[in-house]
């Protein structure tokens, strides 16, 4: 195991991404799941174009929050106890492990957001405006959700009950991200300033990152 914080982060993130390349559950399962959810909504509530344009952005972000977190779950909680023991014996800094897993989850979440976003734009005729701020929002949400999912993933069992619990735990905590993202898009559409919403989301990211790093070592001492 390499020493040094950032090399370890890169090693952990690389391992996670390699695992995703082999198993491909984000690409083949979670993304299609998010996409079909977007498909189901108009079937249930009506296909009127005006209505869909109205609810489209909100539906997209809800799907990101609820299903996107599954991206982080798979990577964080797939470590069994023997694997965790092996990692700590090899000298892996738990905080580096946390940041590494969150980093790989962020990347996968970005892919999720972009692909599902394209589907949403197509099905709901969402206008793509303010692209720089929009991309920033996508990135901040991806980081925030990845951090929440990774942190929550590390406090549940690596059992099916534990994995099922993560979305429930993350959902209420993701409200500032949900409101920030939806209000940011609203603001871009109406030409308002969205700085306060962006700062709120950044605050979420910082808070969760700090707590995750500080509690990584205490959590391992189980």
């Amino acid at each position, binding site marked *: 195991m390499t020493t040094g914080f950032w090399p370890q982060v890169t090693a952990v993130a690389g391992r996670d991404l390699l695992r995703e390349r082999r198993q491909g559950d984000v690409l083949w399962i979670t993304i299609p799941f998010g996409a079909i959810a977007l498909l189901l909504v108009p079937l249930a509530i009506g296909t009127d174009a005006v209505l869909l344009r109205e609810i489209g952005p909100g539906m997209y972000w809800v799907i990101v929050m609820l299903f996107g977190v599954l991206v982080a779950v798979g990577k964080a909680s797939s470590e069994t106890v023997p694997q965790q023991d092996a990692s700590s014996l090899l000298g892996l800094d738990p905080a580096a492990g946390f940041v590494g897993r969150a980093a790989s989850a962020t990347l996968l979440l970005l892919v999720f957001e972009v692909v599902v976003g394209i589907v949403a734009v197509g099905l709901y005729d969402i206008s793509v405006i303010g692209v720089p701020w929009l991309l920033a929002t996508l990135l901040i949400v991806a980081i925030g959700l990845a951090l929440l999912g990774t942190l929550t993933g590390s406090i*549940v069992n690596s059992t099916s009950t534990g994995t099922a619990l993560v979305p429930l735990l993350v959902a209420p905590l993701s409200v*500032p991200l949900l*409101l*920030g993202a939806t*209000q940011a898009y609203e603001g871009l559409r109406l030409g308002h300033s969205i700085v306060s919403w962006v700062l*709120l989301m950044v*605050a979420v990211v910082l*808070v969760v990152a700090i707590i995750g790093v500080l*509690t990584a070592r205490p959590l391992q001492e189980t």
Partner: protein
Amino acid sequence: MPQQTRVRRWPWVAIALSLATALTFALVSPPDDTQGDLVRIMYVHVPAAWLAYLAFFVTFIGSVAYLLTRHLRWDRIAAASAEIGVYFTGLAIALGMIWAKPTWGVWWTWDARLTLTAIMFFVYLGYLALRRTTDDPVARANRSAVLGIVGAVQIPLVHFSVVWWRTLHQPPSIIKPDGPAIQDPMMLVALIVGVLAFTVVYVSLMVERIELIHLEDQRNAFERIADQSVAGDSVTAPDLGGSS
């Protein structure tokens, strides 16, 4: 041998007495000028909400204290307070709905306080769900403490986001009374007595609930030991032949 405390009576007595007192004041106080007798619902709704926030604050303190000291007592305090907090939050929401229906004609409005309370309910429900998945008291304490801290620290951020969201989207036509304007000192007294009574209830329930966690952990520990085979089981008596 586990230490067992003597059976305590005072918590139950305290609960009964304080609730009786609060009920008396609530019934005796005068009706409100605009809301009429519906204002009496406030004398249980507001205390329930106050206790909900207090309980979750205690969970936060307990979680931090546990991670710093590693004494399981703090974990028990955090967990007991979370469960009682979930109860009071649910009660506050239910009472808010019972008050809202005759007042505004709908069970639910999406105002900031109600929405925030509902979100808090799910945060701590998740905390309880997490505790149920782990048997080992130390692992359970570690995990719960982290969630307790993350949840509590996120609450202010959730609060800001919901309040900003509502100020942007508040329908201007609905005149919402935020709560009773206190016209009569007896109304204020009824409210304060209610808050005090519920606080006594909280403390009493805490004492008993912490005891229960302690007892159940001891019982689980005994059952775990009882389930394990004794080392000598693998050794059988030698067969010496001959008649038994």
